[in-house]
């Protein structure tokens, strides 16, 4: 096995305070305090994540919008100035190469943010497809530390560090602001289901990470009285699963399509030509055979990735993610089941260590959206 060791700008903080793991070659914190307590800090108050390990490239040039429309399944060319969107990037077979976000920074200039696990694969793919479009693709990952501040108290905390008006940034929009004295791209986005921001610092090289470390600490200080916690990758995973969001490599991969993954909203068939369109259109016409569902344990057990799903003695699917929900206090999972059984309220069985346990097909997010997440009714901010 190839053991790589890559570090982010604030590696020293992680090493000093966190319980470290190797995540796709990056030395990252799995947790600092505990997964459950960090998870609940984000649902109740606020959490701060270092997500610098993710890949970031700038795509620019006369035909940048057209190019992105071609390689992505959604419609990035229609983005407003400093607006973003979630999209999938597919291969010719309609399989998902990656899921990512794209922001229009200025006319003909876009920022693409993709998974750490796919940094090289995505960059190579984008470069290989860019030749006929005359666009420039620049990997800025090591120059742009990226933090995610997530939870109902995120805005009130971040506002202490900037004069820029955060309340006017809508979900999936962004602004170029000065945060803690540094130029930053601040977007209202994230991977937890909660309200919150992703803060990207411009031009801070990995070799001189001082500004990143200063901002990280300033945000933590600003949040002390609001119950902020630094959060590791463990809580990041349980939060996104509760919110019903896919993890690349688990819930989606090169062999699953956005239609099977219930990411139809990110596929714009109206576009005359994009990579994967033909295969996806064919699948849409023929109908999908399996689909991604949320499963809530009825019996007492914790479902795990890879567990098989059964109904009346017949195997009908498999789990792609599973955990004990720190918020709901029962087992939750995501998986693919044959479309005949993907009906809300259906009772299926999942296999956990050779025994089968009852589970119910439910809609996602798993939590009540009136009480938790970005659309919660009781604003705590």
């Amino acid at each position, binding site marked *: 096995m190839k053991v790589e060791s890559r570090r982010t700008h604030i590696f020293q903080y992680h090493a000093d305070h966190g*319980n470290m793991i190797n995540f796709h070659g990056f030395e990252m914190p*799995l*947790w600092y305090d*505990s*997964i*459950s*307590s960090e*998870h609940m800090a984000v649902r109740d108050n606020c959490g701060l994540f270092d997500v610098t390990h993710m890949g970031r490239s700038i795509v620019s040039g006369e035909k940048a919008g057209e190019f992105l429309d071609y390689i992505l399944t959604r419609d990035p060319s229609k983005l407003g100035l400093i607006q973003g969107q979630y999209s999938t990037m597919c291969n010719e077979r309609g399989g998902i190469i990656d899921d990512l976000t794209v922001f229009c920074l200025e006319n003909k200039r876009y920022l693409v943010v993709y998974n750490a696990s796919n940094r090289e694969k995505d960059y190579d793919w984008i470069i290989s497809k860019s030749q006929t479009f005359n666009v420039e693709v620049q990997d800025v990952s090591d120059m742009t530390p990226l933090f995610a501040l997530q939870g109902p108290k995120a805005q009130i905390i971040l506002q202490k560090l900037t004069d820029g008006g955060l309340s006017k940034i809508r979900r999936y929009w962004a602004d170029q602001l000065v945060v803690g004295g540094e130029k930053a791209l601040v977007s209202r986005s994230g991977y937890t289901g909660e309200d919150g921001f992703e803060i990207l610092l411009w031009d801070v090289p990995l070799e001189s990470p001082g500004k990143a470390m200063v901002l990280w600490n300033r945000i933590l200080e600003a949040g002390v009285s609001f119950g902020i916690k630094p959060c590791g990758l*463990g809580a990041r995973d*349980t939060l996104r699963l509760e919110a019903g969001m896919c993890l690349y490599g688990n819930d989606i991969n090169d062999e699953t399509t956005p239609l099977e993954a219930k990411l139809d909203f990110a596929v714009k068939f109206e576009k005359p030509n994009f990579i994967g369109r033909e295969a996806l259109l064919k699948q849409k016409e023929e109908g999908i055979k399996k689909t991604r569902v949320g499963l809530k344990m009825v019996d*007492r*057990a*914790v479902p*795990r990735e890879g567990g098989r799903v059964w109904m009346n003695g017949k195997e009908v699917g498999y789990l792609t993610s599973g*955990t*004990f929900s*720190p918020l709901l206090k029962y*087992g939750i999972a995501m998986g693919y089941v044959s479309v005949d059984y993907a009906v809300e309220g259906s009772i299926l069985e999942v296999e956990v*260590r050779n025994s089968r346990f009852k589970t119910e097909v439910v809609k996602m997010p798993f939590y009540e959206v009136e009480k938790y997440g970005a659309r919660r009714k009781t604003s705590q901010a």
Partner: protein
Amino acid sequence: MKIENYDIPDNLFYSKEHEWALLEKPNFVKIGITDYAQKALHDIVFVDIPKKGTIVEMMKSVGTVESVKSVSEVFSPVSGSIADVNEELRLNPELINEDPYGKGWIALIETNNFPEESKKLLTPIQYVGYLRTLSK
């Protein structure tokens, strides 16, 4: 006794799988997982133990302890039948983290051969020695 950060009470027997056994009264042995085991798992959220009356064999699985991210089998350090289980753990599995040798006990087992079986378990001093080999 203490080694590094781990508490190793002097009155217990230990297994290499990090369970402890306490002879509570003649023929009845209380079992649980050690401080080392609970610290390695961290953040325990779920405990699964079989019903009273279940027959268990020495060093065979008697249940599971799960953290958010991982699952760990609990092996019974003694053979016998389950006389009682710690029902508190169903609602408060974190008791194992907070008090692994006390409120975090897992099961009470009625044994028939503890004097003989305990010879195969580790004394506190042997367990400390074993932990030292792990931390190297």
